[in-house]
């Protein structure tokens, strides 16, 4: 009997032009939480896709309990009791929780569903592991954290022993993250083995026993978490020392650049307002952070002020000028730059080249066109300047298709484009979402640099570390309203978490705190 429940030995997986996994070995012990750490594009997802049967490796083999197994598709993986919670949940929105859990393995008698026993089993599992769900609720009606629990129950229902979590905490609140960690510890005690993909070092320190680090498709090493530090792990991951603290001087707020008064935005999902009577100011030379759990109106607020959706009430001002009814293009000309939340949906035309994307906001300016003809040379030179200045890396420089670039570089390209417009107000929505520490460090520096140059920066973030480190002033949003205003120097993460979860709220926004 082998020590390891799953071994991936010398796995090599090539894609056209690159080696995504280069001779990687990963050994998972029974009953351990094993973290898989690496930057974006380090090969974590590829490795897990190999284990889950989505890819076939060119070299290497997979062993379960010491025996070589062949995993051709997810069904094989499932038969070997390997289960996975994907980063983007794979649930049927209009089905109930119970239906989703039994989907694919429906208990039936001659084709007739036998939901009763399924329900009993689901309830038993949810009781046993503290995974509270309502089996009859529809997926579209429940929170993201609850949806994740459904995904976990799906694995348990199939009696999986090896559980893969692909960046499970990205969408959770601090409290929900703590709960998840507790659940993971419970699995561990049960003897289940967990593979935990992440690039958040705190979580590894908190829950993992061992950690395997990948960098650029290569195996860097496996360490015992108890014997290492955050700094060491991040150095293994990035290949250099990373500064976790954002260096910045005190902020010197100037005149009010942007002012929103009583902004209300209707929700697309339900009849309530997604943003309800929100007023705020952003001054020159300060970074104001709108913090909150996903889905509390931050997205809609930004879409409202930038013009992507219509506000139903309220007015907005830029440098004292009313821009409530200005078009997106007009706002852009007046000096609003917007780093959008979804870089694939809004930020980039993925099938356009990098240079075409870099002029997406400005292609119509005389600088880049003459009588309707695009000045190819001018575009190329501008793109090359930005690529160098912002260190945007890609396969073929300006003519690389945006789709083929890594997430971090796509984001850098968007930031390059938006910052180079020399805006008065920079609206950055989750600018570091899904990026690795190296890229995050860079983007934070850019935001602070913009601030120091006297720009007003409105940052929307779900990451509390980011909120605490980068911002000069924090506004917490809960259910479409601003429920508190804080100074990052004096407030604690726990305190913020309570406001974000709606457990506490300040009376008005005057700074007076009221215990709930």
């Amino acid at each position, binding site marked *: 009997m082998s020590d390891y429940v799953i071994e991936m030995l010398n796995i090599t997986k090539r*894609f*056209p*032009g*690159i080696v*995504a996994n280069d001779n990687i070995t990963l050994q998972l012990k029974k009953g351990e939480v094993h973290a898989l750490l690496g*930057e*974006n*594009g380090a090969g974590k*997802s*590829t490795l897990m*896709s190999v284990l889950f049967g*989505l*890819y076939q490796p060119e070299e290497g083999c997979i062993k379960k309990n010491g025996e070589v197994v062949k995993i051709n*598709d*997810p*069904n094989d993986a*499932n*038969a070997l009791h390997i289960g996975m919670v*994907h980063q983007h949940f*794979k649930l049927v929105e209009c089905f109930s929780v119970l239906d989703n859990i039994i*989907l*694919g*393995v429906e208990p039936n008698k001659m084709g007739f569903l036998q939901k009763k026993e399924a329900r009993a089993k689901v309830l038993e599992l949810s009781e046993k592991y503290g995974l509270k769900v309502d089996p009859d609720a529809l997926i579209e009606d429940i929170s993201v954290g609850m949806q994740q629990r459904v995904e976990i129950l799906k694995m348990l229902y199939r009696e999986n022993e090896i559980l893969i979590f692909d960046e499970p905490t990205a969408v959770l609140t601090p409290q929900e993250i703590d709960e998840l960690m507790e659940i993971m510890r419970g699995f561990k005690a049960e003897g289940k083995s967990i593979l935990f993909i992440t690039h958040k070092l705190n979580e590894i320190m908190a829950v993992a026993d061992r950690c395997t680090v990948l*960098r*650029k*498709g290569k195996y860097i090493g496996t360490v015992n978490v108890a014997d290492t530090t955050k700094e060491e792990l991040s150095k293994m991951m990035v290949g250099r020392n990373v500064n976790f603290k954002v260096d910045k001087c005190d902020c010197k707020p100037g005149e009010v650049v942007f002012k929103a008064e009583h902004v209300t935005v209707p929700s697309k999902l339900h009849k309530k307002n997604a943003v309800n009577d929100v007023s705020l100011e952003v001054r020159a030379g300060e970074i104001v952070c709108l913090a909150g759990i996903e889905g509390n109106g931050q997205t809609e607020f930004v879409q409202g002020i*930038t013009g*992507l959706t219509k506000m139903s009430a309220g007015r907005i001002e830029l440098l004292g000028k009313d821009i409530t009814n200005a078009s*997106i*293009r*007009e706002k*852009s000309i007046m000096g609003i730059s917007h780093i*959008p939340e979804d870089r694939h*949906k*809004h*930020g980039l*035309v*993925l*099938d356009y080249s990098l240079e*075409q994307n870099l002029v*997406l*906001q400005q*292609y*119509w300016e005389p600088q880049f*066109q003459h009588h*309707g*003809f*695009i000045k190819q040379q001018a575009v190329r030179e501008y793109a090359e300047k930005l690529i160098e200045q912002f260190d945007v*890396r*890609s*396969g*073929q420089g300006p003519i*690389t*298709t945006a*789709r*083929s*670039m*890594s*997430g*971090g570089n796509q984001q850098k390209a968007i930031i390059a484009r938006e910052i180079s417009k020399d805006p008065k107000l920079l609206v950055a929505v989750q600018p570091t979402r899904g990026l690795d520490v190296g890229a995050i460090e860079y983007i934070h520096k850019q935001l602070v640099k913009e601030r120091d140059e006297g720009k007003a920066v409105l940052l929307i973030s779900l990451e509390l570390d980011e909120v605490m480190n980068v911002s000069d002033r924090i506004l917490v949003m809960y259910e479409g309203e601003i429920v508190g205003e804080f100074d990052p120097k004096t407030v604690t993460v726990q305190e913020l978490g309570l406001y974000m979860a709606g457990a506490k709220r300040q009376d008005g926004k005057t700074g007076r705190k009221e215990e709930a």
Partner: protein
Amino acid sequence: MKQYFKSKGFITVLASVISILVGLLIGFILLIVFNPAYALGGLGSIITKGLSSSDKFAKVLYQAAPLIMTGLSVGFAFKTGLFNIGATGQYTVGAFCALVAGVQFRLPWWVCLIAAMIGGAVWGFIPGICKALFNVNEVITSIMFNWLGLFMVNLLLNNMPMMLANYWGASNKDRTAALASANPSAIIPKLGLDKLFDSNYMNISIFIAVLIAVLIFIILEKMTFGYELKACGFNKDASIYAGINAKRNIVLSMVISGALAGIGGGIYYLSGTAQYTIVKSLLSMGFNGIPVALLGASSPIGIIFAALFISYIQVGGEALQPEYAKEIIDIIIAVIIYLSAFSLLVKNILGKFIKTDTGNVNAEGPAKEPPKPEPEKATEEKGGNEQ
């Protein structure tokens, strides 16, 4: 050199060539099935007929011109993210407008062509505006407008005695007047080309079509207008984010698309050799624009060659009579055209075998993006019924 073989352009051309060959092969099998004795000769005539005489070659060019236009119509809409299945309706209305201008109002040929363009544009505008304002799927509207266009034109022609051939001394009244007798100035000039090719079919329409194709190429690739249109096609949300008026672009795109098909109808029926026949079925010239656009990968230059090819095959097919019945010939030609349009599929298959240099290498590390979509799909399909 090796680099060149790995380029995306090369794969696109190779994919088109392979699908054409597969089409011919299956066409050949059908020839054997229907009449084995003449199969080899039949295939030979499909392949060589178009070049057998200058008259045949002139006919290839003559039919290619309207095909280029309908191909451009469909391809232009594709590039901007719309599926204009209404090219045949726009083509019919364009033809009607050209003929009315020529026969009823006795206007010169170039005015007739402008009339055709406007007619087609209007027939494209309505689905476009419905899509932009009410988000009505353009496929559905334009299918309805195909039939609306056809029957409106038939109805109008039946009630315009001057338009019909019998008014001008011919015996049949189910077709429009021959332009030679009604208004010779409406016939597209031949500039001596007919004598050069020794063919009645030859006129300058192929040059008009190629010129327009080049114009479309310039608009799409060199101008801010094309940049906006393509951006909307690729990613509507990002275009809106960038301040582009997506609704306006949808309408404009359908108007231009319709105008192109309209011109196609114009140049075909203003040739002097074709007469519009009142029938109750949609004109295939418009629908053939779809395979032309697919075969040409929606690129204006590719569409020129795709249209020439399809026209060439059609001329070759006509030579199969009388050994094969007309319907059988239609089937065989349709199969060849149909399979040619599979070039996209072939391209994807080729893409897996030939490793392109574009779209993967990146300086920082492996790009996750390109191989991603397939496994995602695989999960959905396979994951759906686990165990």
